[in-house]
């Protein structure tokens, strides 16, 4: 088991190095000039800015300087917020995105497993048809639509109540987090529902289910003890990467609900060609994703003893 984890970790480090290098190359290939702003600056000021960020050096040298700093855990200073370190940006805003993401995944997993199981049990009957219709909606409607609708719903609830009972935007208490995390989790919930459904359907016809029925176990016990436990594995597989995807993909939801997450830095940095923030957030998220995949691999062993044996 230990050597297995070690192997996975080394592969993970190589992946992160690859992500960093690919991002570095892609970022420098993107047309546009990170130091250019609305007001044109003189050649002298331009040179000073280039010196400040080391852009006057050849790109290959910049790459090695960046890699060296990255090994020491230093991503440099943001281009757009010239007195903030990228490390501080990640430190300040990632916990917000992570909280939102974990809540969203919690909603998604809970809903996905529940709806998936129900659709499988009521296969081709009304609950299945209704839920699967909603799932298709959930997958095809982009999150900004859900975000806008969700916020409008909150506004209307408050208007109906005649006072603000639930905040329509902002960050701070759990009541701020409910709607955005549900909206953020919808797509994943739909995905997990489909996954859970097909995996449940596979399990339903297995011999051991028949055995359990023959033994005279109660349907509820069969469901929880035999069906759910066996069907949930594929869901766990995608859950890890989904956590990473949700925490990174919250840009729109963060914007609509005015949430100070890392997602908006991640997206805006690309728009503004903020080199240091692009590198910092991408490498950080890349590492996070890799870590999540490794965690899932390890979790497998606990859920399915067969994986441990191999």
């Amino acid at each position, binding site marked *: 088991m230990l050597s297995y984890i070690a192997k996975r970790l080394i592969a993970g480090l190589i992946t992160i190095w690859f992500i960093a290098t690919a991002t570095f190359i892609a970022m420098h290939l993107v047309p*546009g000039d990170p130091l250019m702003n609305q*007001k044109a*600056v003189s050649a*002298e000021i331009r040179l000073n800015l280039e010196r400040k960020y080391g852009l006057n050096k050849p790109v290959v040298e910049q790459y090695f300087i960046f890699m060296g700093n990255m090994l020491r855990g230093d991503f440099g200073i943001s281009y757009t917020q010239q007195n903030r370190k990228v490390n501080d940006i990640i430190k300040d805003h990632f916990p917000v995105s992570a909280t939102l993401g974990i809540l969203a995944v919690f909603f998604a997993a809970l809903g996905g497993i529940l709806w998936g199981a129900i659709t499988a049990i009521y296969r081709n009957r009304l609950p299945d048809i209704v839920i699967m219709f909603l799932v298709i909606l959930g997958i095809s409607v982009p999150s900004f639509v859900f975000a806008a609708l969700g916020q409008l719903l909150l506004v209307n609830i408050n208007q109906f109540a005649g006072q603000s009972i639930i905040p329509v935007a902002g960050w701070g208490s759990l009541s701020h987090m*409910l709607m955005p995390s549900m909206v953020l989790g919808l797509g994943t919930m739909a995905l997990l529902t489909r996954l859970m459904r097909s995996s449940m359907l596979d399990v339903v016809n297995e011999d051991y289910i028949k055995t359990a029925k023959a033994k005279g176990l109660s349907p509820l016990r069969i469901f929880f003890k035999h069906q759910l436990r066996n069907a949930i594995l594929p869901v766990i597989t995608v859950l890890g990467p989904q956590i990473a995807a949700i925490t990174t993909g919250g840009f729109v939801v963060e914007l609509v609900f005015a949430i*100070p997450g890392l997602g908006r830095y991640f997206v805006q940095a690309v728009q503004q060609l903020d080199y240091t923030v692009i590198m910092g957030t991408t490498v950080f998220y890349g590492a996070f994703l890799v870590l999540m995949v490794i965690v899932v691999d390890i979790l497998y062993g606990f859920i399915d003893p067969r994986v441990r044996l191999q």
Partner: protein
Amino acid sequence: MNTILPFLFTVILLLHSHHCLAEAADFETQTVKLALNQEPPQLNGMKATDQVSVMVLGHIMEGLTRYDRRGRIIPGVAERWEVNDEEATFWLRPNAKWSNGETVTAHDFVFAWRTTLTPSTASEYAFILYAIKNAEAINQGKLAPEELGVEALDDFTLKVELERPTAYFSKLTAFVSYFPIQEKFYKSRLDRYAADASDLIFNGAFAMTDWVHSASIKLKKNPHYWNRDKIKLNAIEADYITADTRARLNLFIDNKIIFTRLDGETYQDALTRKFRIRSFSTGSVFFIEYNHRPDRITANLLLRQAIQAVYNADEFVNKVLATPGNLRGESLFPVWLDGTEEKFRTEYPAPRLEPDTDLGRRLLNQAKSQLGVTQLPPLVLLVGDSPTAAKQAEYLQGLLKSKLNLDIKIDIQTFKQRLAKMTSGDFDLVGAGWGPDFDDIMTFGDLFASWNLNNRGRYNNPDYDRFVRTAMNSSIPKVRMDAMAELQRIVHEDAVILPLYEQGVIYLLHPKVKGVVRNVVGSDPDFTYARVVQ
């Protein structure tokens, strides 16, 4: 589910602190709440360039002068001043204090200005200090910062030598780049200066007590501010930071914020909800800039005149922009600029353009024969990546196709890439705009001077340059305005740009909040003198 819902509901109610339920405007505490459309990227006045930073800075800092409710220059840190062709003297009030209780002195200005101009500071707005003697040379590293023509005669007298006659110097000193910085404090922070609320000290009407990045900024009335008796608000709390106009409208509907700007989409919603919609002219002019580089087809005057002849300003303002407050584009100089006695545009009216398709076609045919072609290649129209920019570009594409049979290729680019293409000249037409940096006509006038780096179409006309110099080197209003009128004429006759519109924005304001000032130059919107009524 039946048991979960009421449970969740109770949890929500329990989790609510009273604070986050507070209303947008509170009479008892004189507190107003806002949403900012972005995190202020730079609250170091020496380096701030964007609107949000300038807006916040305008509340927490004060220059030698400031703008009053009607947009006139009034005393700030300086009690009085004198400006002549060679120099300016400012007498500072002895009771102007920093938020740490120390006195704001003339040395704080000397330090700030020298530091802004020091090349290693790399201030993008350093050019605005070039009115001071030796400023440009210092900024280019040719002279030491100590050579700057500014001197603190004593703690309360600041003497400024001018590079050239600058009649509007007292207006410049209201701008963020001219704000004072206390040397002692700055040196205790250096690179961290202005990174957080604790890395700033204030001499303005408000002090920042709390700044959670990308989440909230809280300002409290500054007890050390010299004019504190005139300040009614006790707190300005920006509890939300989001660029989403719809989210801000929702917050406004929910009575969580007192102010929000509307766009074309949210305008319709605000109308439906019967809110009072206010409009404000931002003072910016938007135009199509031509590429005047000699190898470009748009260097041809007749072609530019043909486009000018068919442009329909009324249709653009009413049908394409379709929100209130925008004005027809007629000149490089917007209507709000002062002339000698009255507004410049009243004294020197811009030629009024009426669309004339026949004239346009004639001019285009002449252009074709001049260029020796029967059909012009498609022209590249470079625009930004906002939905509004795309809509405007598509209108112009349709217009030029139907009126002149000109093919337009729209090139949509992100902000940075558009700037890069503008600077390298990779376009025929580009959607551009210009907003004023200071309250003088020169902020627009020198835009197309051959030496101006913002003249990205590389327009080069010795006559234009000559009139700019005439105006620059004179402090006599008539001489300056006559020169500006010549510039207005050249811009029209030479079709240097195609003025599209003068920007107006629409916004909502809480009915119980009075005294909010909209400024064309500097901090906008300005809540300094605002108050909540019952």
